[in-house]
């Protein structure tokens, strides 16, 4: 197992600022004017009922949706002005894990790592992180939902990126793997990364900024 497991060789994040960010979905103002300022190492915890716009806000942050109003700045630059550059800095973990059912876990991880421009050398560390080593040769269609989620999260390790957008990342994870995920988020923040986490409280994030999207 390589020694580089704990070491996050990333370009640290810069200050991530939202200024009156609003999101409109289906003609309805889903998120009205939210503001925050996250320094490297900070985490933002999104709260809110189902349908309050947590996932939409994360997709907005990833640049998949356009804001109805407001600005999002990373290191002072408007991220929507240069989306390709911004997308190269972030991970988005959504409700789907991006695994191909007919490929094995190892093949899936190799494909995702290559796609995201990660290094295959780090891949050695990724399966161990979520105890995926014994699943490496299993086709993804035979995985349970928790195992699929673990395989999806492994890309956080395999391709280091400074901004993590995590949408209910602990769905399906058992207690032990939730602890692993929390440790991973802590480590990421210590290395100067930023994490934005939407959660119903099943992931403990140390001293987060909070954003309540209401109902």
């Amino acid at each position, binding site marked *: 197992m390589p020694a580089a497991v704990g070491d996050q060789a990333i370009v640290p994040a810069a200050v991530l600022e939202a200024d009156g960010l609003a999101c409109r979905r289906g003609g309805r103002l889903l998120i009205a004017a939210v503001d925050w300022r996250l320094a490297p190492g900070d985490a933002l915890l999104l709260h809110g009922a189902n349908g309050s716009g947590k996932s939409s806000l994360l997709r907005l942050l990833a640049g*998949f949706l356009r804001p109805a109003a407001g600005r999002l700045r990373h290191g002072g630059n408007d991220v929507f002005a240069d989306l390709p550059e911004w*997308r190269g800095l972030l991970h988005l973990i959504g409700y789907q894990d991006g695994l191909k059912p007919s490929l094995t876990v190892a093949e899936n991880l190799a494909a995702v790592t290559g796609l995201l421009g990660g290094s295959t050398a780090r891949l050695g560390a990724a399966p161990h992180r979520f105890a995926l080593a014994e699943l490496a040769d299993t086709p993804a269609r035979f995985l349970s939902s928790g195992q699929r989620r673990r395989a999806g999260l492994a890309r956080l390790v395999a391709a280091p990126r400074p901004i993590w957008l995590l949408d209910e990342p602990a769905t399906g994870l058992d207690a032990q793997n939730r602890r692993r995920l929390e440790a991973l988020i802590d480590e990421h923040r210590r290395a100067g990364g930023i994490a934005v986490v939407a959660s119903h409280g099943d992931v403990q994030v140390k001293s987060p900024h909070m954003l309540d999207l209401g109902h």
Partner: protein
Amino acid sequence: MWQPLAALARRDLRLALRSPTETFMGVIFFLVALSLFPLGVGASPDILTRIGAGVIWVLALLAVLLTLDRLFQADLDDGSLDLLRLAPAPLEFIVLVKCAVHWLTSGLLLVVASPLLALLMALPADAYWALPLALLLGTPTLTLIGAIGAGLLVGSRRGSVLTALIVLPLYIPVLIFGMSAVDGVLLGLGGRTAFLILGAMLLAAASLAPFAIAAALRLAGE
């Protein structure tokens, strides 16, 4: 920029090899549907020779159409479409790679199978090189144009039927020049111009279609 594209090509090729039924569906349809024609119109060589090239081209259009919905739908369903958009390479190049792999695992098989079809339709000897060559120039264009429709309708129910309705009219120029290339050779009129036009359409599709496909996929992600 090349690492993500190479990883994508490897992944898609591997996926195609893992599900041979889906991969070979198009070419098997091509063979089965064509073998119905001698039964339907009678096995007289004059009729078959006269309609042969046209029938083969029409079936090639339909065979490509059949395979289009696996182009982006699976990536949308399992969340890989988001991953493709987070890759450090322009989406236009990514869709071009996806189309190239799709063609290798669908259109190319039609090209390879086409001499056999020429035999089934009792086409003259010249068809054994003219037909594969015309399909070689024409089928990548079919994949690229079809991918625009597949991208626009990815995620919609009844997507594959609608894709056919949108895409088939756009296939008409390829059909016309593909036909006249083969017929030109078979009737001794020389199909050179038609072959050149097929090539020009391929170049135009390869350079313009990726922008349309990428724009369609960006809409699908909203």
